[in-house]
């Protein structure tokens, strides 16, 4: 919590400066009050502060004192009374448009509501009247970096630097602004100049901040592409760098890229010696020795390591990657033997990457099957071994391996027979039940899958991993209630599981939940879950706010730059993709099938009613609806109030102006009855278009949206982008023929340059070879998709298949 304190101190200074510049000056007594108000605000004694404000404002002479009004607003805001706060601050501003305090407070309010652009405007206005106010400049710079106004950030940082050249943070912030604008040279020079102002220390001293600064400076050099200088810089300062691992890693990497592979090799060997299980080091060594493309050399290299260190798995595993045929088998035997002896559950996961090579798959299968026979009959792995040389559990793990093996190959029956054999052998091993559940899932029997996963869960109720797996399986079987109960065994007491999972940003659960709601036609609930996930991403982006000051002060600059770069592409995360995809398809469904106010039964029953009855009933329904609406509103209001209360409590206990207003509650009914589902869908689509550009689903969804919005150009764009990614995707072909029909029927009605343009573009697409062979290839691709679908359990390819069957069935 240290840094909050420090910040409030700075704020204190700032506000005092503000104070001294007050233009409409208060008499000494009131002035003393005003000073106390500032102190009370900093110390979070809001009630006292508010009283003092009222004291000043109650004096007739100062009832309109602008800055007191502003302070009152600020305090009210911190107490969670946002609307009153705005009223007061606006009044203050009106009274004195030239007061920087009023503008400053207005900016703070806007910032606390996450209206960053507005906040910047307010700060700029404040600075017009007090251009050198450090506090305001600092806050402005934070908001600027937060919304990535990099040029503005650089200018503000420059100003801060000029005003406070003695402060370390001024130099570093200034340099960082240039770094972020890719002006590496200036950034480097600023840091170099700053280092010269520091007193050089004698000999190596443990100064972590200095070490981080040096490494950061080195990153700038590396980013600039001047690798020679980076090497030189790193070596010169080696004695000041505390993080020796990063030092070696960076140096080795730099050597590789400057053609000094001999030196790089030495360092990589040292690194491997220190941590023989880091694959990156071996990759580096491969590059240094220039054996990347030479499997034989690589085998020799890894063999040398596997001899050195008996206990290390990685080199042994890598040998399996690069050997073939007999040699592969020779290395596979001891590898399997030691893993089965140990009882390594992840053995299959470990070897699965080898399954891209069908020869290796056969070798593995033959080997393990022969091992099973030897283990079963003689308790040994191989014929040339002594009887009973293998532990009794080895057979179990061999069965388990084969179950996973056959499951992976799609041979579910054999997989099931092996897992059953294993369960007969040892019915207490939890992994077996999980495996069984997985096989059921892959056969499409989701209910049985959930049942078996629950069985596994009950064997160890303290294991949260199985608990979560089990919840996921229940969700996939559309049993949301059961899933919630299962999760509830681990969530915090006193809150409902769903609330707690939302609070904990448990996105996998929420996404699976949304999908389950979607499958069961509960559109509003599904959308609610998707929006919750979307909000988590917003929260994560907002959470970086605190780091803008913290990182500069703590000198964790490399991590900070990484953080900024991560936040820039945050929505590229698969979690977002999945949730957005779900939301878009729900909105598309709602567009195609808008929800009706009355339920179906009622509609049917109205058919055979007398007009009088009908009228009566309609009245009744209207009343009922009204009542329901009122109730809903009341419930919503109550919920909001509760949340508001909670938040304001939080605000009072923590920092007043760093928490956003309580966001609007997500109501399923409201979400599903949206007036413009396509507009909502586009909101989810946009991040996908920028961050999930290489996924075909993005463009297919885009097509679906734009085809409903009648936007031929955007449809064309989506189709073209999708074609670039996978021109054999079955759904894409469906869309292509759909698109052709659409254009042909409407081309005449389009405004002038469009028909010609579209025709030429269409010609390009539809004369391509792929489309010529559409019928044959299409069915090929569907077969390959459904048989070897990478996302088993994901029904997209199956839907595509059924859609296509309805759409254009092939002639044969």
């Amino acid at each position: 919590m240290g840094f909050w304190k420090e910040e409030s101190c700075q704020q204190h200074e700032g506000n005092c400066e503000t104070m001294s510049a007050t233009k409409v000056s208060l008499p000494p007594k009131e002035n003393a009050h005003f000073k106390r108000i500032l102190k009370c605000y900093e110390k979070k004694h809001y009630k006292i502060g508010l009283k003092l404000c009222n004291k000043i404002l109650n004096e007739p002479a100062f009832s309109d004192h602008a800055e007191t009004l502003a302070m009152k607003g600020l305090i009210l805001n911190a107490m969670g009374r946002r609307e009153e706060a705005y009223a007061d601050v606006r009044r203050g501003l009106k009274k004195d448009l030239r007061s920087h305090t009023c503008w400053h407070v207005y900016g703070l309010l806007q910032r606390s509501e996450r209206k960053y652009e507005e906040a910047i405007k307010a700060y700029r206005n404040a600075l017009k009247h007090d251009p050198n106010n450090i506090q305001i400049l600092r806050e402005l710079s934070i908001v600027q970096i937060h919304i990535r106004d990099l040029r503005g950030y650089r200018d503000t940082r420059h100003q801060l630097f000029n005003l406070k050249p003695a402060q370390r943070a001024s130099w570093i912030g200034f340099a960082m602004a240039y770094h972020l604008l890719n002006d590496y040279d200036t950034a480097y020079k600023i840091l170099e100049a700053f280092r010269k102002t520091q007193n050089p220390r004698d000999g190596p001293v443990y100064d972590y901040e200095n070490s981080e600064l040096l490494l950061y400076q080195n990153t700038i050099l590396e980013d600039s592409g001047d690798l020679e200088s980076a090497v030189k810089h790193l070596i010169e300062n080696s004695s000041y760098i505390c993080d020796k691992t990063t030092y070696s890693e960076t140096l080795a990497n730099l050597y590789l890229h400057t053609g000094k592979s001999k030196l790089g090799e030495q360092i990589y060997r040292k690194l491997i010696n220190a941590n023989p299980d880091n694959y990156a080091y071996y990759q580096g060594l491969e590059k240094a020795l220039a054996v990347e493309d030479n499997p034989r050399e690589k085998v020799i290299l890894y063999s040398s390591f596997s001899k050195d260190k008996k206990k290390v798995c990685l080199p042994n595993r890598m040998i399996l990657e690069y050997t073939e045929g007999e040699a592969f088998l020779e290395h596979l035997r001891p590898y399997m033997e030691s893993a089965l002896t140990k009882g390594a559950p992840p053995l299959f996961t470990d070897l699965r990457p080898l399954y891209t090579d069908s020869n290796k798959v056969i070798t593995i299968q033959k080997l393990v099957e022969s091992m099973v026979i030897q283990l079963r009959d003689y308790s040994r792995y191989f014929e040339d071994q002594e009887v009973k040389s293998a532990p009794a559990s080895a057979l179990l793990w061999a069965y388990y391996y084969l179950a996973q093996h056959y499951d992976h190959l799609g041979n579910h029956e054999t997989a099931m027979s092996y897992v059953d054999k294993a369960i007969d052998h040892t019915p207490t091993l939890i992994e077996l039940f999980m495996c069984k559940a997985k096989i059921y899932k892959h056969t499409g029997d989701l209910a049985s899958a959930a049942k078996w996963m629950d069985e596994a869960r009950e064997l160890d109720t303290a294991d949260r991993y199985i608990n979560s797996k089990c919840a996921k399986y229940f969700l996939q079987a559309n049993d949301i209630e059961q899933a919630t109960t299962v999760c509830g065994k681990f969530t915090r007491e006193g809150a409902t599981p769903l609330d707690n999972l939302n609070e904990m940003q448990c996105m996998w659960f929420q996404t699976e939940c949304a999908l389950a709601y979607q499958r069961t036609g509960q559109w509003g609930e599904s959308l609610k879950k998707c929006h919750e996930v979307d909000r988590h991403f917003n929260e994560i982006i907002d959470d970086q706010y605190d780091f803008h000051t913290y990182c500069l002060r703590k000198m964790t600059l490399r991590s900070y730059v990484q953080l900024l770069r991560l936040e820039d592409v945050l929505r590229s995360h698969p979690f977002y993709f999945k949730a957005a995809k779900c939301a878009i398809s729900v909105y598309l469904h709602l567009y195609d099938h808008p929800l009706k106010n009355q339920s179906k039964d009622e509609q049917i029953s109205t058919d055979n009613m007398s007009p009088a009855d009908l009228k009566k009933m309609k009245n009744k329904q209207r009343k009922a609806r009204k009542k329901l609406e009122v109730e809903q509103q009341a419930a919503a209001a109550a919920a909001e109030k509760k949340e508001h209360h909670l938040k304001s409590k939080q605000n009072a206990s923590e920092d007043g102006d760093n928490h956003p207003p309580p966001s609007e509650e997500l109501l399923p009914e409201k979400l599903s009855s949206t007036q413009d589902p396509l507009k909502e869908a586009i909101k989810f689509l946009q991040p996908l278009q920028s961050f999930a550009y290489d996924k075909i689903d993005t463009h297919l969804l885009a097509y679906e949206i734009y085809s409903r919005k009648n936007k031929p150009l955007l449809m064309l764009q989506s189709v073209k982008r999708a074609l670039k990614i996978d021109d054999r995707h079955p759904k894409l072909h469906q869309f292509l023929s759909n698109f052709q029909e659409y254009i042909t029927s409407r081309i005449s009605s389009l405004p002038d340059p469009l028909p010609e343009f579209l025709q030429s573009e269409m010609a390009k697409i539809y004369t391509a070879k792929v489309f010529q062979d559409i019928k044959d290839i299409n069915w090929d691709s569907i077969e390959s998709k459904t048989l070897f679908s990478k996302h088993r359990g994901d029904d997209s390819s199956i839907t595509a298949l059924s859609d296509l069957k309805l759409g254009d069935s092939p002639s044969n």
Partner: protein
Amino acid sequence: TRLRPRGTQSWAGLGSTRLVEGQCARRKTRRSLNGERDFLPFLFRNLITVRNKSVICKLEYQNDMTRARIALGEVTVHNIRQLKRLNTVVFPVSYNDKFYKDVLQAGELARLAYYNDVVVGGVCCRVDTSNGQRELYIMTLGCLAPYRRLGIGTIMLKHVLEYVRKDENFDAIFLHVQVNNDSAISFYQRFGFNIVETKPAYYKRIEPADAHVLRKDLRENNNSANNSINN
């Protein structure tokens, strides 16, 4: 709340981190009561404590020179289903809910046996004072078929014998065995148990229904019994 990926706990964790309590690694030879030379190669006694929110799971390791690891662990509300599953497979008799409820209260008198970190055996006892004496009754002691003759039963029984020895207040240990279960009878006889009684029609739904009562008195030859276990 435990947050560990399945599989990492068992084989990675236990091998490397060991909290050793009273390590005694020595070669043991002893003569059992019936005069056979019994050889226990190399005995480690390590205590491994895994803590989480509600469970403290103690695994007591006995390591021999072979590659298998055998250990005893507590029965808790979280893993009792494993014991249930084990008992339904191992014993022809099925036990009711009360049995398992009592087991949870039994503390050291209920143990699961782990072989290479897989549950393969279990022992459950209770204190019986029904005939005026303080006796320990072994309700179940069993091991899955593929893991028999590996010393797991011995470790479980030794755990029980050690318990009564430390307690010093037991008059006897006894248990029931189906009359045709020769391997079990000879197993207990090796530890100084004797058939003292045969109860006809003791079991309800299994054949043969008769049971031997195997009993080991602790009062008369307290010293010799202790010596034979611990020397």
